């Protein structure tokens, strides 16, 4: 421990994070709420139900705000005496049950107001999305309404505190004067209710922390620190690094309780640096203690997900609004903490600029090759330019945060619903081959584009494909726009709205389009399968005359039964996307261009634009399972290609060929993000030579205009052994298009696919 420089360095408790991590995890999962602290979750539910009955005519935003206050002022609370941060409230998901229902990791049913809309105003669209999902055409949130990708303006929140937002509210209300509408008045009233409640809640926790400190004298240091922090935040600007972390954590929990999913925890090294630096300079903190605090802080995210579900993103590097790079000593301190923590959550992203320090490249590459697979590496120039092209100012675009995996949104100014819909780019191939019918069930999923067996040119097939794809895009767009217009009645969210410009100024909730930028995300999945299939038809039917259209139609319909020779020709003898082969790369680029420009022609239901992305996440598997055989030689039910890269095992041109192909795409046209998954054999990146090559590979990908890249550095033998002895590999992390997860938590099928891909990389 570094000696005090005058003012008090807080004496640390003897125990370390590592001593406490397991106990904290257990208590997080099973919180021993004391009845002395408030009413039970069941009682809260009863009180909420009664409130709604009594106030049936109130605007929903006020109903929600009032129940929010009820929960925070009356619910049971708890503080773990071992912890350095507090947040626990036994809210019973009262608000989520009311609005749009469960998060991915919870099992209560759909929310009341969402289901009311799905069965009423949004019935047609909901039915369409349900059918599309069941047939592998699209996937996404219920009714096409993405309420789940959001980040508050962390800088602004920390600078102003909730009392600052209350001041802003009063001022905005005053400046509207008599012109204020009923909706605006309700919104301002709601803000006052929720921020007042959050400040009260923090005070309750602060008092509990001090009481707990009396009982647990051994842990008085951390408990008193929590008590002191919560007497100040989130009401006011944090006075210390610890208070800033406590502020962010409690906001995360309350925003999620209100009903949104926080998907970015901000730009860690820019937002938190002033607090860290001030503490160091004043001698209030040591580097060691800061690292411990970061571990306690990040452990919360692991406790929430256990490395098995959607994670939360913290981003490093990148640039400030004026273009200066964010990297500082906190960047590296946090990366050290992450290495010591050794868990797959939270998810870290690193934004790179052309002149980023070599140390940043090497440190992150070294972590990745040591098995910390959670990292997404992003290339700022195309990411920023893509946002500028869609109407953001350069200053705003530089302040993007990866929301979730790779989808950028401007911090504090944008509600980018990045995953309203994920569209299979491969399914329209099946529909074009079958006159708009699903090959497996015969259901009509698209327009009749004619009997493909009779097509006499590649252009004719290509046109049918585009018609099928456009049909999906147009329907998705119409139905999403419709759903967004219902959003204010489904999930108004005043608590987060106040932390996003220009909601307070305009008196408008985010659900009603109050954000400065409003966008909707369309994600295209399975680019490789679409491009490889189109090219296979072009080459084998119309260029070579090797097969007829009738044969292709019949063979794919029959899942290549009796035509294994044909399937192998299509799979192994026709050039594939991801190998730097001109013909098929051109086709892929055409599909991507069409998808992106069509999406960008749409306006969404909040008046903003629609933004295209190219990646898959788990949709590669789910779409594949519901899709018939395709002319790229893929059999029915097999996974689609992951991310924006080649089909499994077909990037035979090696990683450089893969990068050369993928960077032919114009990533300034994927404002909603994209990612290339790369598997590398451990020997390829071992030693100093390997690290140098690894870093050079990343730099080349960026220099060629690639968007984001993520890696798995594993050999197949290790994974096979992990299948046989899962107990010995509980901590083995792998990255599956977006999520770093524990290998042993994957299904057997996913594991097998994974191994096939890794074996190929070797």
């Amino acid at each position, binding site marked *: 421990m570094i000696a005090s420089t005058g003012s008090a360095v807080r004496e640390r408790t003897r125990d370390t994070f590592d001593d406490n991590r397991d106990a904290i995890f257990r208590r997080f999962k099973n919180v021993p709420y004391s009845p002395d602290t408030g009413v039970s979750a069941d009682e809260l539910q009863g009180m909420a139900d009664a409130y709604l009955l009594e106030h049936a005519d109130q605007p929903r935003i006020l109903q929600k705000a009032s129940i929010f206050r009820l929960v925070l002022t009356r619910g049971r609370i708890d503080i773990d005496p071992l912890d350095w941060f507090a947040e626990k409230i036994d809210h019973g998901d009262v608000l989520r049950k009311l609005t749009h229902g469960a998060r991915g990791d919870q099992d209560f049913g759909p929310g009341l107001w969402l289901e009311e809309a799905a069965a009423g105003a949004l019935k047609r669209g909901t039915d369409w999305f349900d059918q599309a999902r069941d047939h592998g055409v699209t996937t996404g949130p219920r009714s096409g309404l993405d309420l789940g990708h959001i980040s508050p303006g962390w800088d602004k929140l920390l600078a102003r505190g909730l009392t600052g937002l209350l001041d802003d509210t009063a001022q905005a209300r005053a400046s509207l004067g008599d012109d204020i509408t009923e909706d605006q008045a309700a919104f301002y009233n709601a803000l006052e209710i929720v921020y007042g409640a959050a400040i009260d809640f923090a005070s309750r926790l602060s008092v509990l922390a001090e009481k707990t400190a009396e009982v647990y004298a051994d842990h008085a240091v951390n408990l008193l620190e929590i008590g002191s922090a919560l007497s100040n935040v989130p009401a006011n600007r944090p006075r210390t690094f610890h208070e800033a972390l406590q502020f962010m954590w409690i906001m995360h929990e309350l925003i999620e309780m209100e009903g949104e999913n926080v998907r970015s925890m901000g730009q860690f090294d820019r937002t938190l640096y002033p607090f860290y630096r001030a503490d160091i300079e004043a001698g209030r903190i040591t580097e060691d203690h800061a690292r411990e605090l970061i571990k306690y802080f990040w452990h919360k995210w692991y406790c929430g997900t256990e490395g098995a579900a959607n994670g939360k993103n913290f981003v490093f590097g990148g640039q400030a609004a004026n273009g200066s790079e964010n990297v500082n000593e906190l960047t590296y301190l946090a990366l050290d903490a992450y290495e010591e923590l050794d868990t797959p959550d939270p998810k870290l992203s690193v934004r790179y600029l052309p002149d980023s320090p070599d140390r940043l490249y090497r440190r992150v590459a070294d972590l990745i090759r040591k098995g910390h697979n959670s990292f997404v590496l992003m290339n700022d120039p195309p990411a920023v330019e893509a946002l500028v092209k869609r109407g953001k100012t350069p200053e705003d675009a530089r302040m993007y945060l990866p929301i979730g995996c790779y989808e950028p949104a401007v911090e504090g100014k944008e509600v980018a619903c990045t995953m309203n819909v994920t569209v299979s780019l491969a399914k329209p191939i099946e529909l074009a081959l079958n006159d708009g019918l699903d090959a497996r069930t015969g259901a009509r999923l698209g327009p009749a584009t004619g009997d493909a067996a009779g097509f006499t040119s590649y252009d004719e097939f290509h046109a049918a494909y585009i018609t099928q794809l456009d049909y999906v895009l147009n329907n998705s767009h119409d139905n999403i726009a419709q759903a967004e217009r219902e959003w204010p009645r489904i999930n108004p969210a005043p608590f987060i709205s106040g932390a996003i410009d220009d909601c307070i100024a305009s008196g408008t909730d985010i659900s009603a389009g109050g954000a400065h930028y409003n966008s909707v995300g369309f994600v295209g999945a399975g680019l490789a399968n679409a491009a490889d299939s189109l090219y296979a038809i072009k080459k084998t039917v119309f260029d070579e005359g090797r097969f007829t259209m009738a044969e292709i139609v019949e063979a794919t319909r029959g899942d290549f039964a009796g035509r294994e*020779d044909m399937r192998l020709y299509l799979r192994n003898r026709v050039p594939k996307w991801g190998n730097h082969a001109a013909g098929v790369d051109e086709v892929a680029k055409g599909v991507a261009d069409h998808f992106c420009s069509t999406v960008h022609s749409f306006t969404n239901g909040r008046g903003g634009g629609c933004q295209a992305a190219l990646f898959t996440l788990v949709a590669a598997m789910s779409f594949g399972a519901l899709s018939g055989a395709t002319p790229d030689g893929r059999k029915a039910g097999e996974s689609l290609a992951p991310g924006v890269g080649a089909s499994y095992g077909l990037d035979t041109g090696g990683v450089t060929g893969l990068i050369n192909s993928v960077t032919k795409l114009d990533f300034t046209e994927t404002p909603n993000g994209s990612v290339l998954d790369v598997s590398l054999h451990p020997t390829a990146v071992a*030693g100093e030579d390997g690290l140098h*090559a690894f870093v*050079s590979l990343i730099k080349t990908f960026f220099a060629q205009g690639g968007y984001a890249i993520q890696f798995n550095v594993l050999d197949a033998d290790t994974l096979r052994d992990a299948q046989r002895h899962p107990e010995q590999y509980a901590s083995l992390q792998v990255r599956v298009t977006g999520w770093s997860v524990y290998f042993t938590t994957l299904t057997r099928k996913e594991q097998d696919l994974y191994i096939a891909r890794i074996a190929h990389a070797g």
Partner: protein
Amino acid sequence: MPASRSPVTESATGIAVNLKGRVFDFKRFAVHDGPGIRTTVFLKGCPLSCAWCHNPEAIARGSQIFYRPERCIECLACVDACPTGAQAVIDDKRIFARGICDLSGDCVDVCNSGALEMSGRSMSVEEVMDAVRQDNSFYGQSGGGVTLSGGEPLLQAEFATALLRACHEEGIHTCVDTCGQLQWSTLEAVLPFTSMFLYDLKDTASENHRTNTGVLNERIIGNLKRLSETGVPIEVRMVIIPGVNDSDQQIEDAGRLLADLDNITGVRLLAYHRMAGSKYDALDMENTLPDVEPPGEVRLIAIGKQLETRGLTVYLPDRA
């Protein structure tokens, strides 16, 4: 098979761009075959026949056909296509009678399963350059380039020289991975176009060398000495095969030899492994891989130490 001599087209600078050679593989993102990210081009043919060879397809100069029955779907397309009857079905069994094969490659052309694969394609200098140029940006970023390997790449002397010269003229860094069993004039011819040599030192005991590789080592060591006087950087590579070439005496002799030479950038130790067995099977070649375990880390470190005491820089195999 020597480089063919059909009508020669010359580039502006006089390189015979349509001169053909026999290439059996490309390895992209090669990171341990010289500095940076490289593309290693493997040329067929080798004057040695090392028992431990992990590229058995590299030894013969002519093309060869790999046959991997486990991939065969018994579609019999090859049987129809084969002009000599080498691809056949006898007693309900798919067989490849290599003895009567005339290497037409017709079977490979129709085999979509990957069961049949041609090792050794005739490619022109320009075709190879097209392939290696694709990764120029990776070379530039990493300080990498192109490595010629084999077999012994300089056995196809004219082709290799033209290739190296073409790379050199385009500013691509070049490495030649050689066994050294060559006429000095062959090495001398590529010197102006070779940025660095990777030089294999298999065994300092000459008789033992002959037993395991088919030739004595005098010429190899003589060429190494001579090459070290030219100023070109040389990385020496030693495959460590326990019980074959790793006695204290053999290592001591190697250390003494190398310590006296100039321009040795370092000695890279490679750990012998037996993972090439399936290739021998697929070529119907007798598997000559010594039945010994790969050298352990402790032993490799000890060998490294022994060489380092001679003032040599040693690179141990990278542990993944």
